[in-house]
Every structure is written in structure tokens, then in C-alpha cells.
């Protein structure tokens, strides 16, 4: 497949998100301005100016009208997708790391980093239908048990009843979204051994995948948090996603900082690895990035995917017909 290279960011990519229809791709990077692109040809539509720090995460509403972004400048902003205008800004006392809309887009879960005296926390905010009614009141705040460890991702569970969080302490937790009580934690032995960098839900929210610096990714059931599958690679995993169409998952990662000088200097060697979801075997890889891959996302139609790397490039790949015929 010939990739489309999109150079819109001057700094490393942090997150990629497709809208529900799969025609728009939102990219966040450390350069303060999220971009939006057409997902089929990689043409850029626009940028959202307003943040003063690295933008770590974003999510887009079901109707593709509203975009929420979390940034290191301690704010989470709501935007009008079409016009690029900023609708609202929530401010926090520490950098915001992860954002996720609930089913129905009435609530958003936001995590903040540990910062000076602040401990890491999970916040739930109400999102009003009409932006002018928006307030910054928190519906719920959950303090992380391990306050000094970052929570890298927090997402809504099915039916918004639960919040699933994962972070630097390598533990995946399920919280009750009404009361904020901790419902379940992943086991120490079977869970990840190093910080979890990424978390991605399946298209029907029934299962999700977590990627970790321990060079593996794990597949879990969203309701019971049972560990279903594990995928092992040779590199620390920075990003992962589940294909909505076929039984594949994709992992992307990087190099341990200590190994940087001894890596192969051939350009374009960092690859996104595809695994068979059920058989846990590697089926292939797509090379091309000049630096570690930080973000991965499948298009909701499953026919293309995009990857964002440390090199500031977003690569959009449409799958060849062969991809759909892969037999195991």
C-alpha cells in the first residue's frame, strides 16, 4: 500500500482519532495545534489554534460537530469542528492527559497528571448541548490511588456505567462512574509489567486493548476486565488499535531511550506491527516512520489506518486487496 504522508506538525505526534463516519482524521501533537484532515486523501482541512502546550489527546462527538482536546497547558477545550472556533475551556491545576466522550456525548472523562502538589486524578464533566450553557462543574472526581503515577488513558465503559483507566503503574482499573468506587483492578502477575502507554476500544466497546512499555499489548473484556489475549513484540508499545473489520490489532512503538544510539540507522525502519487478534501471531508490519510510532488509529470502515510518529509525520495507509485475503 502506498502511504500518504501528511506533514502538518512540527513536533512529535501524540494522538490520532477518526470521527464516526471515518471521513475526518484528527491529529494531536506536541506543537499545540491539533489538525483535522480528510481521511481518504490526506488533505488538510484546518487547525485549532488556542492551546499553549502540547496537546495529548482528543475525542470527537458522534455527530462530528464537537471536538474536545486535552493539553499540557492545564486546559481542556471544546471546539466547533467545522469552524475551528473554541467553544469552551475547562481549566485544571495540572496538565490534562486524556479525554473521552461518553456514549451520547453528555459527559466527558478527563485525566490530569500529577503536578507539584497535585496528584493524578480523573474528572467527569458534563457537556451541555448548547455551548453557551456550558459550565465547568465536575460531576465526579476520582483521585488516583497511586497519586504520583500518571494516568495515561481513561475511557468510558459500555453504557457509561464504568470508567476504565490505565497508566504508569501498569494497572488497569474499572471505576463505577456514579460513585467513583474502584470496582476492579488487573492482576499484577498477568497484567502489564511496565507503564501502560495506550488504550483503545473495539468498535462495539466490548473489548479493549492496552499497550505498554513492557513490549506487549493485552486484550481485555470491557465488562469483566478478563485478560483475553496478549501480543508480544520486541519494542516498547506506544500505541495500539483494534481493527473494526477484521480480526487484527495493530501495535506501534519505539525504542528504549537507552538503545537509541545502537539502533539500525536505516531510515524508515520503525514499523506498525499487525497481529492476528485471535491467534496472537504477527502477520506483518508496515515500515516507514523515521522515529518511534506514538499514535495509531484504524478508520472505522477498517479499510485504512493512520500512524503518527515521533518524526512529526502522519502516514495514511489504504490497505491493498491482499490485506483482506490474509489467511492464517
Amino acid at each position, binding site marked *: 500500500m502506498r502511504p500518504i504522508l501528511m506533514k502538518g506538525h512540527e513536533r512529535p505526534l501524540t494522538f490520532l482519532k477518526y470521527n464516526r463516519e471515518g471521513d475526518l482524521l484528527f491529529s494531536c501533537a506536541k506543537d499545540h495545534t491539533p489538525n483535522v484532515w480528510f481521511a481518504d486523501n490526506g488533505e488538510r482541512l484546518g487547525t485549532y489554534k488556542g492551546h499553549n502546550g502540547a496537546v495529548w489527546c482528543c475525542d470527537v462527538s458522534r455527530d462530528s460537530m464537537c471536538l474536545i482536546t486535552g493539553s499540557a497547558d492545564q486546559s481542556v477545550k471544546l471546539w466547533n469542528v467545522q469552524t475551528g472556533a473554541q467553544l469552551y475551556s475547562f481549566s485544571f491545576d495540572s496538565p490534562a492527559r486524556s479525554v473521552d466522550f461518553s*456514549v451520547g456525548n453528555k459527559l466527558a472523562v478527563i485525566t490530569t497528571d500529577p503536578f507539584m502538589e497535585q496528584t493524578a486524578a480523573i474528572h467527569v464533566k458534563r457537556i451541555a448541548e448548547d455551548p453557551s450553557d456550558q459550565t465547568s462543574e465536575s460531576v465526579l472526581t476520582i483521585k488516583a490511588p497511586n497519586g504520583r503515577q500518571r494516568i495515561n488513558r481513561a475511557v468510558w465503559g*459500555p*453504557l457509561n456505567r464504568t470508567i476504565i483507566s490505565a497508566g504508569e503503574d501498569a494497572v488497569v482499573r474499572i471505576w463505577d462512574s456514579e460513585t467513583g468506587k474502584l470496582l476492579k483492578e488487573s492482576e499484577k502477575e498477568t497484567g502489564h509489567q511496565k507503564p501502560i502507554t495506550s488504550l483503545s476500544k473495539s468498535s462495539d466497546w466490548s*473489548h479493549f486493548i492496552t499497550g505498554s512499555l513492557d513490549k506487549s499489548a493485552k486484550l481485555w473484556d470491557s465488562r469483566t476486565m478478563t485478560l*483475553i489475549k496478549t501480543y508480544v513484540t520486541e519494542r516498547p508499545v506506544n500505541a495500539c488499535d483494534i481493527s*473494526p473489520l477484521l480480526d487484527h490489532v495493530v501495535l506501534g512503538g519505539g525504542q528504549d531511550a537507552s538503545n537509541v544510539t545502537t539502533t539500525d540507522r536505516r531510515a524508515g525502519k520503525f514499523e506498525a506491527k499487525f497481529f492476528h487478534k485471535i*491467534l496472537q501471531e504477527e502477520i506483518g508490519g508496515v515500515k516507514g516512520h523515521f522515529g518511534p510510532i506514538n499514535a495509531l488509529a484504524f478508520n472505522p470502515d477498517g*479499510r485504512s489506518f493512520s500512524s503518527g510518529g515521533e518524526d512529526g509525520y502522519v502516514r495514511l495507509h489504504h490497505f491493498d486487496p491482499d490485506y483482506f485475503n490474509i489467511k492464517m
Partner: protein
Amino acid sequence: MAEVEATADRLGIDLSGVDWDSIHLPPGEDFGITSDDDQDLLRDDPLEFETGLQNVIVVDNLPIVPPEKFEKLEGVVRKIYSQIGTIKEDGLWMPLNPDTQKTLGYCFIEYTTQQEAELAREKTNGYKLDRSHIFSVNLFDDFDKYMKVPDEWTPAEIKPYEAKENLQHWLTDEKARDQFVIRAGTDTEVLWNDPRQMKPELVYRRAYWTDSFVQWSPLGTYLATVHRQGAAVWGGATAFNRLQRYAHPQVKLIDFSPGEKYLVTYSSHEPSNPRDTHRVVLNIFDVRSGKVMRDFKGNADEFATGGTGGVAAVSWPVFRWGGGKDDKYFARIGKNIISVYESETFTLIDKKSLRVENVMDFTWSPTDPILALFVPELGGGNQPARVSLVQIPSKEELRQKNLFSVSDCKMYWQSNGDYLAVKVDRYTKTKKSTYTGFELFRIKERDIPIEVLELENKNDKIVAFAWEPKGHRFAVIHGDSPRPDISFYTMRSGHSTGRVSKLTTLKGKQANALYWSPAGRFIILAGLKGFNGQLEFYNVDELETMATGEHFMATDIEWDPTGRYVSTSVTSVHEMENGFNIWSFNGKLLYRIPRDHFYQDREKRKKQQEEWDRWVKEWKRLQEEEKVYRQKLRDGEASDDEEEEYEAKEVEVEEVLEVTEEIVAYDFDQ
């Protein structure tokens, strides 16, 4: 008891008449009933009995001294023996004659390990303390053994002749296929290479067949495997039975003689004293009978090639076989000597080794009993380096050449023994850099003429050199750049058959290795490892490229013995992409076998699929249940959209599977 009675009745024995007390079972744990497995091993190699005294040696023929000289003698003995190994606390005991209070003339020495005891025995047996006292040293356990030798000689049993399986069966395969063996993971498989069917056919497969590696014998008759207790060879048409076992604990490396008559096994053991070098044990077995013809024990130093003064490592194979397919001679290099043995008696020719000062390296001619030796430069240039050809067994020097300003050299024989190329690295006048040239010996011609060949660009580094098997040409890869040049030369040129001449030079090739076909004429110019497995199939007769190919990350290339096929493989350096490709001699890719995926366990896959399906069913069910709630969350907006979503997905999948082309007919007259 009832059984015993029944048996007795059957045999006609009257039980009442039996005196139970007079029955003695044979001594030993197994009551004389040997188990099948251990039988061969135990018989051939009686292992040490657990007497706990295997670290003890007895030194005899010591001087008999009165108590005053006692300490002095003990000190001398201790000094000699502690150099070899660590004597245990109170390990040295010199018994005294109770009447005369003088020493009895022998002593016991106990070491910390058995290997040290054996080493001490070898080294000091025959040691001359002074003219009248020559040490006689034995292992304590050996005494036991010698005493048990029966007085009468019983003739050895002759086993009845069993027709063994035809080991050469693979040669008569109707489709003229060759077998090859691959190891992947824990399985080892022998397969037929069947290029017409575009895939290999499994002949035999066995898990855990070998502990470390497998090796074909040179003519392909046997397959050897290596295990903890020794080596074994297998063969046969289809069944690959174990033909013979060779006991050699902790064997690390094996080597067949070219005619497949003998097998050399090598093991290296950790010394108990960390400052000592490793102990090396080499055994030479007769392949068909499994008997040890000769063994060699010693320190690693003795078997190292004349090293460059640093840590001398044992290079394998230690013994190099010579004299063609008869396996007549084998030789090894040591410090300043080359020991040549003949395989009739397994002793040194003329009972002594060939003494060559500072000899660094030697090679046999592949077909004739001729040795080529290299002696490096000495004395800062006062004594030049030398290459000599020595005839065995006469030890006559056939030809010799002095070489000046030499920093290193390497010898390459042509497969028929017709030519010898010596690659010589020389210092330039300023001694700052080296340049390389070749000395080409024409062995089969009278007086063995020598020619000197230098590359056009003298400063080019030689990356690789290879003779054409059975031919008169050779190829050289030279150059410093990432794309070196490859030159082809012939020893026979059109106008004057006495001069080497260049055929052609290919410039800027991505190659670092040369693989000639065993029949000659074709060669693969390969760029392994750093060059990403670029392959170029070149026809040397026509001097043109037949095809190029690539096997990403290829690490090994091997031709089949007939020269029809080549395999390129990726061995387990990388976890992914292991497997191999089979090409035809002219560069057509016939088939490839990725190892990880090929023989996956079907059962496991089915199970995984079933388990997954169960999850999916569960999820679907929950999804349905929750649909109502989801709708509510979305203010009733969800239902239609969701259904659309699913339907849309289905449609899409169908689209993928049915790719139809429609040719729209145009009406041109419009």
C-alpha cells in the same frame, strides 16, 4: 507365590526340592537384568563408579627416604603436583613403612576434581625425578579395574549379521530429488526438495531429535545429531533409524572425515582452577562400528592454532583430514609443530611430529596428501614469511616461497587440488597500510610454478575469494566502498596456458560473499547481513547475470550437491521472518517456507478460534441487551444509526469478497 508354583510346574521343577537359601541373585542393583537403554553405553564406556576416590592418584617409584628427608621430598612432590591442580586439604599422604620408618616409595594425592587427577596422571607419568626414579602414576580407581581383569580370555561374541537399511536410498529417488534437513524450534525435519511441486515433502520429522545441531555427513549418507551424552548418526531410506551412538559426555562439536569413515568429537571442560585453560577431550570414532579409535586429552593450549600471542582459542575442526576420500591422514597444528597421523594405526607418521618453527596455519590439498603451511615473518623482517608445500608421508618439501613484508596470509585450495591460492597481505613501504596480492601455485604442473597476481587497484581490500569447484576460475570481491567490485580470473587463458588472466570485473556490486555452484559455472554474488540479502545469479561461462533476487535478512546460503538448487535462509537471528527460500540455479524462486507459520499446531488454532467465538457470542448478547439503554443515552437517536452501522459493515465485507468488473459498452456512434 501361586505364579511361581505355576511356572515351576510348567518347567517340571519340584519346588520342595529347591533349597531357597542356596539361591544367590547376581550382585548389583539390577540383579543381572540389564535394561536395554543403558546396555550399549555401559558396555562401551564403563563410567566411573561412585567410590568417591576418583580424584585420587597414586604416584609410585618415589625415592625411599628416612624421616629427616621426609619433609623435603613431600615439598618437592607437592610443588610438582600443585602446579597441575589444587590438592585438597590434607590431600597428600605418603605412607611410611612402620618398621623402618622410611617412606614406602609411593604416595596418594587427592585433587578437587577428577579431571585434575587425570591431567596429573598424564603429565607426570614417566616424569624423571632423577635418573633412578621415574614416576609411575595411576588413578586410584584404575587399580581396581586392572585387578579385575579375568585370567582367562573369553573370545568376543560375534553378533549375527543384520542386513541394515539401504542408507543410500535417497540417491535412487525416482524424481531425482535431494533431501535437506532443517531445524526449527524444537523440531528437526528431513524433507525432499521437490521443485516441481513447488513445495517440500516431509520425509521424517522428530521433535527434540538433537540437543544442539544436526549435520549431514560429507557424502550424505548419515545425519549426525548432538546430545548431552554424545553424538549419534541416523540414516535410512525413510525411517531414519539410529544407526550408531558415540559416547562422549558434553560433546560440543563434531566433524566427519571426508570419506565418512571417522567421526571426530570435541568437548571442552571448565577447569577447576580458573587460571588454567580449558580441558579439551577429542575422540575419534569409527563411524560404522562406533569404536573409539583414538582419543586426545589435554589443555586447550595444545590444540590451539599458533595464536597471535593473545588468548589462543581452539579453532574447529582441530583435525584436518587429508589424502582425499580415503581419509588416510589427519593432522593438527600445535605450538611449532604439525602432528600428522595416519589412520591405519592412528599414530604419528614416523612416530614424530613435523617440526616447523612458528607455524601459524596449514591446509591439506583436497585430493592429494600435500600440506600447505604458512610461517609468518619473524624478527621484524629479518626472517621473511614463508609458504611451503610438504608431501606426506615423505615429509619432503615440494615447493617453497619466501614472502616479504607480510602481515597475514590465507590459503585457498581449488576443489580438485589443481591450484592453491595464497592471499598475502603486505605492508607498504611505510608500513602504515596493507595491500593484498595473490600467490598462485599450479600444483599439478611440473615443479609447481608460482605466479604473483596483484589487483589493479593495489590498495583494494579483499572481501572474499572463492575458487570455482572443479574448474579453473576464481572470483574475488575487492574494494572498500559499500559497493565493492567483483573480478573473475582464469588460470588458463586463451593465448598462453601458463598465465593467470582476468576475465572481467563487475563494478559496484552489493555483495560480500561468493557461493559457487558445486559443479562450477554458476555463482551467486550475495550480500548477506548488512546488504539485506541481495542475490545475483551470475553465469561465469557467458559472463552475464542470469537473474537477481532478494531474501531479506538472509544469513545463510547453501547449494545442493548437484548444483541444481540453492537455499537461502534466515536463521534465528531475528524472531520474525525465519524461514528459507529455494531457488533454481539460474535464479528463479521456486518456493519459500516460512518456519514460524508453516507447521503451526492445528489443534491449538481451532481451540483459540472456538474460545474467541464464545466471547463474541457473549458480547453480541450483551450488546443486544444494552441497546435500549444506549438509545436512551443518545436521546433516542441511536437505533436507526446503529442498525445502519451494522448493515453497512456487512455490505462492505461483501464488497470486498466479490470484486466484479463491469465493462460498460460504449456506443461509439453517439
